[in-house]
């Protein structure tokens, strides 16, 4: 309960700062519009205002402060503008509409989930191979670790174009980017997890004359679950980033990344911010969903956190 009030205070402080930041960010645009509408502005012309600091302008034109939060195309939209845009483009619009964020979100989400499934599936398989084969461990594992330190997302534009040139387009190229971004964290986490049983436990199974497969199903796999879920959470966030970035280079028409790009081309700041928040909500929902699955699964396995 005490942490809840603390969290709410911090969130409220962030929103307050955001509103405060809107004033100096948007003041010039507001004053230009006010001047055109015939209001009295100090200093009077846009050229004089250009050389003045934002805070000086705010001090000189305190009447304009309220207008900085309701501008049409602000440099920094106020929180309620983003919230209204989010509401309008999700609840008010039909899902089939091209302006509905649910439509765009679903395009990105399907690529994310497909890629995540491929990436984690292959990742777990490779991890099983690594744990049981010393050659694979020694050859592949160092590369899997190194791959975490390099920005492999830079491959994204190339993958899209190459797959397009051999006739693969639509969902799959984005999913492949998502897949390889979630692949390596899962491999590294799963190897750690499958190795987590200590010698005593492995020896105990040996005294039971358990086969390797039995040891895997009854000991290694169950004890790897906490590690697996930790890396799944990283993996799904990476998958979403991959799907969004995968939408950038081809000028895709659908998806949250496409919304971001279109917004930045046409200066639709409110649209950018609402797409950004939709992406954030999606990421949070996916991570939370994995958290729930983890809790239920580990609870049924008898693990207490």
């Amino acid at each position, binding site marked *: 309960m005490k942490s809840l009030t603390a*969290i709410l205070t911090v969130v409220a402080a962030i929103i307050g700062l955001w509103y405060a930041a809107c004033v100096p960010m948007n003041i010039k645009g507001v004053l230009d519009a006010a001047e055109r509408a015939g209001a009295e502005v100090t200093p009077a012309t846009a050229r004089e205002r250009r050389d003045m600091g934002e805070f000086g302008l705010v001090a000189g034109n305190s009447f304009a402060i309220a207008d900085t939060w309701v501008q049409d195309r602000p440099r920094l939209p106020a929180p309620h503008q983003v919230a209204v845009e989010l509401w309008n483009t999700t609840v008010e619009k039909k899902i089939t509409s091209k302006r509905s964020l649910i439509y765009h979100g679903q395009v990105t989400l399907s690529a994310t989930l497909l890629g995540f499934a491929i990436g984690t599936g292959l990742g777990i398989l490779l991890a099983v191979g690594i744990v049981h084969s010393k050659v694979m461990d*020694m050859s592949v594992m160092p*590369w899997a670790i190194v791959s975490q330190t390099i920005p492999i997302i*830079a491959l994204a534009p190339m993958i899209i174009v190459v797959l397009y040139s051999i006739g693969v387009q639509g969902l799959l190229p984005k999913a492949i980017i998502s897949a390889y971004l979630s692949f390596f964290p899962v491999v590294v986490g799963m190897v750690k997890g499958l190795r987590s049983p200590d010698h005593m436990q492995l020896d105990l199974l040996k005294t039971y004359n358990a086969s390797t497969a039995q040891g895997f199903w009854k000991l290694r796999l169950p004890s790897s679950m906490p590690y697996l879920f930790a890396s799944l959470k990283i993996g799904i*966030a990476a998958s979403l980033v991959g799907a969004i970035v995968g939408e950038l280079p081809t000028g895709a028409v659908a998806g949250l990344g496409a919304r971001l790009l279109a917004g*930045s081309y046409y200066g639709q700041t409110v649209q950018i911010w609402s797409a950004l928040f939709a*992406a954030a909500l999606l*990421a949070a929902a996916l991570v939370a969903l994995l958290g729930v699955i983890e809790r239920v699964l580990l609870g049924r396995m008898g693990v207490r956190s």
Partner: protein
Amino acid sequence: MIMVVLAVIVWCAGWWVNSRLANSPQSQTRLVQLLVPGIFGLTILLVWELLVRGLDVSLVILPAPSVIAARFAESLPILWADFMQTIVKGALSGYVIGCGAALLTAVAVDRSDFLRRGLLPVGNFVAALPIVGTAPILVMWFGFDWQSKAAVVVVMVFFPVLVNTVAGLRETDQMQRDLMQTYAASYWQSFFKLRLPAALPFIFNGLKIATTLALVGAIVAEFFGSPTVGMGFRISTSVGQLALDMVWAEILVAALAGSAFYGGMVLIEKTLTFWHPSQRG
């Protein structure tokens, strides 16, 4: 066809050598531990080269390693200019500003239990969000040059470093803090002599995660607009021209820069946290 057969032979030979090495009595020596992944990497490169040549794969789908290497050697000046623009100006300056700000914020937050309770969950939450998405906004605010890339990097690295530092500063236990109190140590004395050193492994964990994020942020931000130099710019225009050898050369630069950056942080970590169990090995 011969090349394809050769590729299969090379693959089997590489695997055979590696399995001999891995199962030999010397498999725990440092030399073998470096040799095995080295041979594996070399095998992959050879198989790649042979398959691309043997199957006549078009340059616009997958260039052979030798073509990429030739392109890399040929366009060193361009690659160097891109490296300076994206990595040094964009990623590095943003990294320093972002990590510095996060460390200072963490120290400030740490003084208040209330703030820490509030900020830690929020920070953890934000650290999991797709922050690269702020790139179009920041490019709009700070212009096309490296300043906007540095700004994206600042936003990306801030929260992981903040969360790790705040968690690290809680690492000391009551006994240790009591001991400092019996020495009549001031807040800053016990901070610099006890809590900061104890937090270092956590801080470096955050700093290491942030190295990759910094490069990702700087490169992806260039997809939203950049001057006519920079790795992200070069990648997106070269992809447009189907000059995939150039794209691979840039990816090679990104890989080298990323591992060097990460390796540098590991090196600093090793010298600063030599006392930690994980470093004594």
